[in-house]
């Protein structure tokens, strides 16, 4: 009679107890699996949302000096101009993509009969790649010719386009900004963006930076955007640009207040840390649930050992060595936990499959991303399960193996 057929008989005998224990393991496995799948997908969604603002993007805005420099007192406001963007493009080859940006709110945005107040930005062509503002088919982004000729053209975020034109195609249409007619040249392709400083790009109206200068008579830009070619050397590129601008504007390059730097690479690193922390936390909670379930299995196994004390005695009388008894109960505990684990993994897989069927077009749900069971998570869960299975079987098995055969034969 093998241990497996013995186990099957035991299972029939203790059906309810076994079912509850199995449920514990299944539940534990599902919670650890689904939680960590969500941990990963939230992390992925945050990263994607951050990249929607432009991956590896750095934005420099002018600040106020906090140190005296070259005879200037502190407290001097720095003014960045469009030429600073050109300078970076020409003199810092590590930052291939760089552009200046103006931004403000204009109350006289008119389309047809309606007039409204909207956010508007003046940008240069590099902005398209920096911020992934790609045009939908049939349109284009602002180009060099628009800049040079200060053309009155406008590129629209996909939501503001809906607001202004509804379902009607906008490209080629005319709208009025401060009572001056502009031609729509493109509409942005939808993208996931979860962070912004003016407003998300889908709500922005884009015009050429040169046109913006003329229209509003601004001298200073709102910020300079650039992306280092290699994120690994991003800190060095940043230092190069700092020194360059400090020399041009006459302030101490180590003056940290002279500008406000917004580095998405740093934010991505923070997101990675948070994501890792979240996953570890989820795994920990799931593992705790599993351990509790493992204690349940061990408990059942102790009861089984107790109930079959006399049978253990009989086996020992006919020549079973302690290791035979140990092996039998180890195998039983192991089989129970792993059966629960396999069921749990299958069930989680189905649960995740169903969750992925839910449409995620809502902003809040978008943060959840699409939870998937990754190989790494599955491996971690399998090893945790195996450890628990061994532990849950080992202690009852050790008790069974240490039974005194004479005592056990007397046991009723």
């Amino acid at each position: 009679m093998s241990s497996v057929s013995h186990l099957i008989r035991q299972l029939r005998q203790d059906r309810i107890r076994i079912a509850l224990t199995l449920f514990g393991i299944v539940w534990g496995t599902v919670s650890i699996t689904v939680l960590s799948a969500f941990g990963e997908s939230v992390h992925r969604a945050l990263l994607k949302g951050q990249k929607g603002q432009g991956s590896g993007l750095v934005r420099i805005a002018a600040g106020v000096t906090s140190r005296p420099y070259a005879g200037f007192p502190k407290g001097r406001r720095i003014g960045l101009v469009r030429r600073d963007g050109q300078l970076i493009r020409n003199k810092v080859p590590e930052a291939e993509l760089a552009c200046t940006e103006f931004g403000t709110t204009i109350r006289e945005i008119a389309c047809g009969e309606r007039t409204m107040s909207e956010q508007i930005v003046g940008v240069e062509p590099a902005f398209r790649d920096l911020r992934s503002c790609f045009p939908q088919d049939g349109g284009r982004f602002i180009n060099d010719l628009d800049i040079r000729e200060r053309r009155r053209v406008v590129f629209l975020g996909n939501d503001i386009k809906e607001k202004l034109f509804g379902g009607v195609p906008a490209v080629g249409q005319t709208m009025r900004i401060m009572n001056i007619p502009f031609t729509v040249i493109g509409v942005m392709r939808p993208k996931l963006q979860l962070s912004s400083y003016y407003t998300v790009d889908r709500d922005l109206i884009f015009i050429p930076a040169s046109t913006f200068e003329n229209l509003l008579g601004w001298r200073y830009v709102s910020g300079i955007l650039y992306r280092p070619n290699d994120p690994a050397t991003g800190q060095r590129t940043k230092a190069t640009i700092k020194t360059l601008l400090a020399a041009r504007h006459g302030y101490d390059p180590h003056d940290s207040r002279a500008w406000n730097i917004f580095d998405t690479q740093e934010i991505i690193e923070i997101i990675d840390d948070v994501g890792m922390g979240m996953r570890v936390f989820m795994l920990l909670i799931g593992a705790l649930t599993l351990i509790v379930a493992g204690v349940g299995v061990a408990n059942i196994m102790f009861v089984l050992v107790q109930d079959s004390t006399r049978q253990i005695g009989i086996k020992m009388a006919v020549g079973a060595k302690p290791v035979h008894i140990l092996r039998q109960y180890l195998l039983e505990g192991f089989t129970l936990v792993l059966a629960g684990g396999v069921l749990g993994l299958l069930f989680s897989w189905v649960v995740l499959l169903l969750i992925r069927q839910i449409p995620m077009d809502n902003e809040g749900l978008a943060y959840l991303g699409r939870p998937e069971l990754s190989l790494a998570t599955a491996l971690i869960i399998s090893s945790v399960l195996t450890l628990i299975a061994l532990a849950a079987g080992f202690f009852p098995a050790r008790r069974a193996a240490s039974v005194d055969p004479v005592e056990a034969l007397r046991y009723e």
Partner: protein
Amino acid sequence: MNNEQFMVLSDVTKVYPMGDTEVHALRGVDLQIQAGEFIAVLGPSGSGKSTVMHILGCLDTPTSGTYHLDDVAIQGLNPNELAEIRNRRIGFVFQSFHLLPRATACENVELPMVFGRVNATDRRFRAKRALEQVGLSHRIRHLPNELSGGERQRVAIARALVNEPSILLADEPTGNLDSHSGAEILAVFEELHAEGRTVILVTHDEMIAQRAHRVIHIFDGKIE
């Protein structure tokens, strides 16, 4: 095999802790058994006769004194070595049969071979043959609770014999049986003795003890 001194107990004592006190089950037992003997160990309940059987059967070891089985000092062996000896050399038959309740007659008889590393086909074959020997070839797939007391005890005997041990130890084998079944079982033991096995019968029943060729009286942990 040394025919003169096959199983030798010398000044064997056995003390069990029982709560705060100790129970002296054996108080200095000397016993020599030759190979092929048919012996009855006779004594009232609590006399220590079962303890003698457990020690002779290597289920238990003496608190003091020595036990030599075929010149091997049993008291120095570890649980694995004791299990090995029980498996190969000794067959047990108990008063309450001690069959696995959820295993069929055949599976019960196979049990000693499971721990003796016999492959499944041989196990099945030898178990069936042993059941035939005790006249139960028609009960192979029955569970113990589907068998009568006499049949159950015969399954237990088949199990005790299946590894072909030289020693058969029986503790009140007829105690739970009616007189007819009891007589049948005793006849089986006589047959086994005739085949050359050492048979040791533990009982409190004078009538049964008389069937053996030598009767050893035990009282209060001592042989009289």
